């Protein structure tokens, strides 16, 4: 096949072969893919460690073998075999074999209210993530951080993608959410040297944790007015500069609050952000933000981005729309910050500076503007890439920026930009012809 790659005849043969191989998979519904993933993760749980030992690896490769290969190139064939046996083949075969069953179930589920189907899919997704992650602590941490990154990226996409402004204030919002939520949980549930003994029994902690997170989000959204009020009086790039100043102000303020550790940071947060909690918040964030951008308000936001004067003429209250969206995005950034603080169980102002800003912006523009799916892809892809290239040490920070520059040059609005995310369409059975189109 590879010898005839340049010949048109050979290529078409290859194309036919490829189409033949991939044809059954067009009809696989999301349920089928989830089943395949479940099989693969279960397989890894049961035979993964033995297989890894047989293939000469010390342990199950944590991140699809990338880190292992970069450290010991000798293991490349072993890792490829491992990936084939554990991931590629089970997913492919599992999805293929369960296709008709999955389509049948998905078709049946379509007759019930949509939320039943949604809940079933989400539970399955959680089971997949959980079985994959519990193999080692590193994966759990990574999964949590990736899910938090998804929330952050989505919320920034509301401003930079859907509203079309350039905001640099997200590190500030994340920091506000992180500190507010941490202070509340530490005040109530931890015997802290500064904030005193725990006021409530720790049994209540999981129930009050959402309240703390929401208060953190509200704090961020309150402070976002500080940026929004001056910035949205005039159109233009002043949001960029005001929001940048805001980030510096928040960072500097936190560094000067000696009561919360100042520049040394604030620690001892209770261990409340477990994998299911973070997962639930992420699902909630994706769901609410997706509904927000598909609502009338979201469409008004797009109108404001494309032409503010025309939107105004079409009865859109531009200032109110922008303010609402900005506060909404800040709220979710604050929630993500609270989760981040309780995952790391330590926050310091230094982690909410320019570096964080570059990272968040990179995730948004890598994934794609104006697109919920793009943001998810961007956050997951960027974080996985950044973890996989970790063995390269500082060269990682040459390769990732280069990759982003290439993405920007060839797809200036990101990988998957301007795509609507319709969960109903996504979860539908795929075996029928789309007669209802």
């Amino acid at each position, binding site marked *: 096949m590879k010898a005839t790659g340049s010949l048109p005849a050979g290529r078409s043969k290859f194309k036919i072969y490829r189409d033949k191989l991939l044809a059954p998979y067009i009809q696989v519904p999301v349920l089928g893919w989830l089943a395949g993933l479940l099989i693969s993760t279960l397989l890894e749980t049961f035979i993964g460690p033995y297989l890894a030992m047989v293939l000469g690896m010390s342990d199950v490769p944590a991140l699809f073998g990338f880190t292992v290969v970069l450290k010991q190139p000798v293991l490349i064939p072993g890792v490829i075999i491992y990936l084939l046996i554990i991931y590629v083949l089970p997913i492919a075969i599992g999805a293929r074999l369960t296709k008709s069953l999955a389509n049948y179930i998905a078709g049946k589920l379509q007759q019930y209210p949509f939320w039943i189907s949604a809940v079933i899919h989400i539970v399955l997704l959680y089971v997949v993530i959980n079985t994959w992650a519990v193999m080692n602590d590193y994966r759990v941490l990574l999964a949590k951080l990736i899910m938090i990154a998804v929330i952050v990226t989505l919320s920034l996409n509301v401003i930079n993608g859907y509203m079309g402004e350039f905001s640099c204030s997200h590190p500030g919002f994340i920091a506000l959410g992180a500190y507010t939520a941490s202070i509340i949980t530490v005040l109530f549930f931890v015997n802290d040297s500064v904030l005193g003994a725990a006021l409530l029994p720790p049994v209540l902690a999981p129930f009050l944790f959402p309240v703390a997170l929401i208060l953190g989000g509200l704090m961020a959204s309150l402070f976002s007015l500080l940026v929004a009020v*001056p910035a949205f009086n005039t159109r233009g790039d002043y949001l960029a500069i005001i929001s940048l100043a805001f980030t510096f102000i928040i960072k500097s303020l936190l560094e000067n609050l000696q009561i919360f550790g100042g520049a040394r940071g604030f620690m001892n947060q209770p261990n409340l952000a477990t994998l299911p909690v973070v997962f639930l918040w992420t699902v909630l964030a994706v769901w609410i933000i997706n509904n927000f951008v598909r609502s009338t308000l979201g469409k008004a936001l797009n109108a404001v981005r494309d032409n503010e004067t025309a939107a105004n003429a079409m009865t859109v209250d531009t200032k109110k729309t922008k303010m609402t969206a900005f506060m909404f995005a800040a709220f979710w950034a604050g929630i993500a910050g609270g989760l981040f603080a309780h995952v790391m169980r330590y926050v310091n102002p230094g982690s909410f500076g320019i570096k964080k800003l570059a990272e968040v912006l990179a995730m948004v523009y890598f994934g794609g503007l104006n697109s919920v799916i793009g943001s998810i892809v961007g956050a997951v892809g960027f974080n996985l890439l950044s973890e996989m290239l970790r063995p390269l040490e500082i060269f990682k920070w040459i390769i990732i920026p280069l990759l982003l520059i290439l993405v920007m040059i060839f797809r200036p*609005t990101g990988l998957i930009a301007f795509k609507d995310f319709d969960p109903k369409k996504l979860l539908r059975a795929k075996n029928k012809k789309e007669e209802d189109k």
Partner: protein
Amino acid sequence: MQYFLQNLVNGLQWGSFYALVAIGYSMVYGILMLFNFAHGDIFMVGAYIGFFTATGLVALAAVGNIILPSWVIITLTMLIAMFLNAFVGMAVERIGYRPLRDAPRASAAITGLMIGIILETGNLALLGASRRAFPPLIKPVTYNISGVFITNQKILIIVVALSLTFMLHLFIRHTKWGMAMRAMAYDFVITPLMGVPLNTIIALTFAIGSALAAAAGVLFGIAYPVLGPYMGIIIGWKAFVAAILGGRGSILGSAAAGFLLGFIEIFVVMIFPSTMRDFIAYSIILLILTFLPNGFFGEPYSARLRL
């Protein structure tokens, strides 16, 4: 009073760096309407080029047993660094901005940010994490003018910064190239149709901005002789704020705002503890921008939307 004057001089010196770097931001912003986020790191590269040139010249003089007067070394260092850094700026434009000229402006901002990270990391990878000491080029002499202490370094920095700003202003106002740049800033679409070479003018803009950043880098090395790969971040982002504070595309405005930022920072430290510097300085900037949303010398925002 003496204390005040002393800090005024310090503020002038500290503001010189901001002013020179801010001009680079402002010129690019004036013409292309985009934030050149790599500019802070171009400043860093300029400082390193200055460091290698100065070290090389000193070593060359020592080997050849020539006694070069210090002003010759400084002038040569400055000129070589400015000349070479102009090419760095043009390369950044060629790689990061020209392919994206029709793309949303924010995408170009991202490539700028990424080029900045590449420059920092590349420096770290090539030269290691150790900081470099800029060779002492002039022997510090302190003049006591009725209680205010002024070193000859400070005089050099302030004079060079002011004269470069003034020269650039003259260039923009009174030469044909400057006229082309002003026309380009006025209308990016029509001006090329009048026969103004678009790419040349934009490259020239980046070259001038980077040359000024290199000058700032050399001066910075003379005043604070410790260079590190991340030195561009602090100066660069603050100068970016100053550039916007001065007003869109206004050379003198952004220089003035750079000096103002220097004053603010020095005077904040004079009154409050130094950890409060960023907090108070940026709060003042936020207040200024709330009441003067177009900066000091900028026109009201009227550009077409490119995103």
